[in-house]
């Protein structure tokens, strides 16, 4: 069975090739992993205030939340719009379009391979965090790890589809990544990367829940850190966003490919 050209053999081959490619850039990927330390910076700011306690975070819950936010971010980071924009501008997209495999599968495989390469670096950073902050150490159950993996995978899928939607605009406007930069601001504030969503005023919480952003970091991070969270509701909304974005990506891609001018190729 094939899905837009993807079969088990193609997926295996894509992942192994992309993993080999990413390993060539392991040092660069380690630096990318290090550049995601923002949640720890936010933790240090929050730790010096009483706000955590005021918001109901007891003991090391806030530390665990930010470590979880860091880990979820590591495995849900998406850069497809930049890669796609470069490929479209330089004509590298042309050979992809002439093969019986949807080009987005290649980008998805690149991301998954990059995550696999990041994994040991992210674990090392988590280890260093526990050395510095031993009281925050906890070992989630296998069930929680499974739920976190699923929630993070869904978070990655939503982000990937959202960026693919913007990337498809490259068929009309070569610099569609500017739109992604615009979306980065609400992502930063509403995803839970800077602060848990529960710390926001009720009105902001209400409006943010209508966007996909809280389900990208805050929801999986709360699952992992063992904080109070509506697991079933969170998964349902993640699935809902995937169901909304997926057809939009497919339609916009089909329309966009007709506009492709294969410049530079």
């Amino acid at each position, binding site marked *: 069975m094939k899905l837009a050209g993807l079969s088990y053999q193609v997926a295996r081959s894509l992942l192994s*090739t992309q993993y080999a490619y990413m390993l060539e850039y392991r040092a660069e990927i380690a630096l990318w992993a290090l550049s995601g330390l923002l949640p720890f910076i936010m933790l240090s700011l929050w730790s010096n205030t009483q706000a955590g306690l005021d918001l109901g975070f007891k003991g090391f819950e806030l530390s665990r939340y930010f470590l979880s936010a860091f880990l979820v971010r590591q495995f849900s980071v998406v850069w497809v719009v930049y890669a796609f924009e470069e490929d479209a501008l330089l004509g590298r997209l042309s050979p992809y379009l002439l093969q019986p495999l949807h080009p987005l599968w290649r980008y998805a495989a690149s991301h998954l391979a990059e995550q696999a390469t990041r994994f040991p670096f992210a674990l090392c950073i988590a280890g260093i965090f526990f050395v510095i902050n031993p009281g925050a150490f906890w070992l989630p159950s296998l069930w929680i790890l499974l739920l976190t993996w699923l929630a993070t995978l869904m978070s990655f899928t939503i982000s990937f589809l959202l960026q693919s939607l913007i990337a498809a605009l490259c068929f009309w406007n070569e610099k569609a990544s500017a739109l992604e930069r615009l979306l980065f601001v609400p992502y930063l504030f509403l995803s839970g990367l800077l602060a848990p969503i529960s710390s926001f005023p009720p009105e902001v919480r209400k409006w943010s829940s209508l966007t996909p952003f809280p389900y990208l970091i805050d929801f999986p991070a709360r699952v992992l850190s063992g904080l109070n969270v509506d697991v079933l509701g969170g998964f349902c909304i993640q699935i809902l966003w995937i169901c909304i974005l997926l057809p939009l990506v497919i339609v916009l891609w089909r329309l966009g490919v007709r506009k492709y001018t*294969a410049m530079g190729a």
Partner: protein
Amino acid sequence: MIFPDTVIDVDRLTKTYRVADKDPGLVGTFKHFLARKTCDICAVKEVSFSIKAGEMVGFLGANGAGKTTTLKMLCGLICPTSGYVKVAGFSPKSRQSEFLRQITLVMGQKQQLIWDLPPLDSLKLNAAVYGIGPRESRYRINELADMLEIGEELTRPVRKLSLGQRMKAELLASLLHRPSVLFLDEPTLGLDVNAQAKVRAFLSEYNRRTGATVLLTSHYMADITVLCPRVLLIDQGKIFHDGQLDALVESLSPNRQVRLELNQDVSPEAFEAYGELKDCENRVVRLLIPRHQLTEAVTKLLANFDVIDLEVNDQPIDELIGTIFRAGKVK
């Protein structure tokens, strides 16, 4: 006329691009910012031709003549503005999976191989994408590698390969799925003479073995003369010649130049019976003789005069083609 075994059929194919039209300088920049002007450029104008299965056709034209745009429409990369095109029975713009399995596009200045990995990794990926099993892919890689005279290079990172080695690996990657229609856009671009000759020999052998249809663009006339009995000439988006290369050369240059160095003084009038006398000085004579009379005329010249040296020259084909492009038509 559509032949029953027509593989590529094109009728009044047109492609128009809309491009920004900006005046130079700062004023032009502001004007363009406030009121963006665009204009339509017709890259390909009502082009029609058909190519039969197994044919190797050369597609010639100056830069910007519309060759690559036509190739991109034929392989489905870009959608035509108007006109009809069928390749291997498919409408290319739909880019159906079955269609994509039958074609390949090789661009001399572009690559599909993953830069930091050995070509073998990209080849294995291509094999999986086209649903070729491991045993069959190994067989095909070995077969093509033998034809291309490439071996251990397949396990070295692409970035470490020479241009010629890379091009061979690119060809291997493009032909692994055994396409029946090959679109080759300057496949020998930048290669040295030896590498060019090897790529030409490979393409000829591939065509002979598989019966693939080939449409080839190149700036090297040797590619065309060696590989393509038929040529399409395109200029400013319009095809102005479609026919056999030999017939084209014959029509452009019906005469051959014969240069004789004599061991005796002979009056110029003595040569008028053999052809058009161009020059006769210091016992060196230059004559233009119609191609079909050449053998007979040269035999008589050698019999009737004391000849020290004899040269028969043709006008180089790239000069002839250049003449056509400057004129924009074939006489």
